[in-house]
């Protein structure tokens, strides 16, 4: 692992995948390969992988509606502080909470077990709990979700629920 100068950002990977069910696993594998040896603990690596897979699945299913001709774009960057994974789809026209992919309701297992809430709806919940920060931006037709996993002690000790979410 090469130490980066302050403010320096390095692109580790940049690729697209067709919006086909299951391709979130391809995204997960390629991101994991890109960030290997960049200072994440095994625990945070597993957490980021889960967040990446869930974000990619939302992009494929909800952003691009499983239309294989619409690619999901993935960019992986590292700076001295964090790994940043950006996942972009064509869902810029989605209603608010686009990253949720139709999951605006906070999942509650008590309600789910009582049959008062769908058993589904865990995707965004997992994403938010797995990484240090999540933000969404929309530019025209494009919708991007950025996942931030800090390097070093902050990320190692955090529970993923910080950053004002």
């Amino acid at each position, binding site marked *: 692992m090469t130490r980066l100068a302050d403010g320096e950002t390095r692109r580790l990977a940049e690729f697209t995948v067709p919006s086909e069910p299951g391709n979130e*696993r391809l995204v997960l594998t390629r991101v994991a390969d890109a960030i290997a040896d960049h200072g994440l603990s095994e625990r945070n690596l597993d957490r980021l992988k*889960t967040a990446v897979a869930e974000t990619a699945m939302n992009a494929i299913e909800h952003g691009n509606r499983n239309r294989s001709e619409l690619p999901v774009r993935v960019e992986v960057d590292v700076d001295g502080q964090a790994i940043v994974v950006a996942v972009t789809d064509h869902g810029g026209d989605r209603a608010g909470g686009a990253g949720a992919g139709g999951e605006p309701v906070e999942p509650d*297992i008590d309600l789910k*077990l009582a049959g008062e809430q769908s*058993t*589904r709806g865990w995707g965004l919940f997992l994403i938010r709990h797995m990484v240090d920060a999540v933000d969404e931006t929309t530019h025209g037709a494009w919708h991007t979700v950025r996942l931030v996993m800090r390097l070093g002690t902050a990320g190692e000790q955090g529970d993923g629920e910080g950053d004002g979410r």
Partner: protein
Amino acid sequence: MTGCGAVVRQVAGGAVIVLSGDIDGSAADVLSGAYQRAVADGDPATVVLDFSSVGYINSTGIALIVSVLAMARSQRRKVVACGLSDHYREIFDITRLSDFIELFGGLDEAVSQLVQTAG
């Protein structure tokens, strides 16, 4: 990507579903079918989900596990789990699945607990 597999066997005090592969949307029929087979014979009080050979669980897989748990609770059966990695144990904690599914390290530990309960 590895398809989900499930092997069901009866033990003293319960039934064991040994899962393998990926627990995602494609696992729905396998998981529900395995649960039905597990409870069809012997009316087990407890169903053990063994995740030792599971490499991946996504949000849809979590939903499937919640469905199995809901079904078991409606039939007054207990569900326990074993073989989860530290990462998936954390996810069971975050989702509060672990409030309803007791977690054991390995299958032997889970089954011995069943035997003690049955005895």
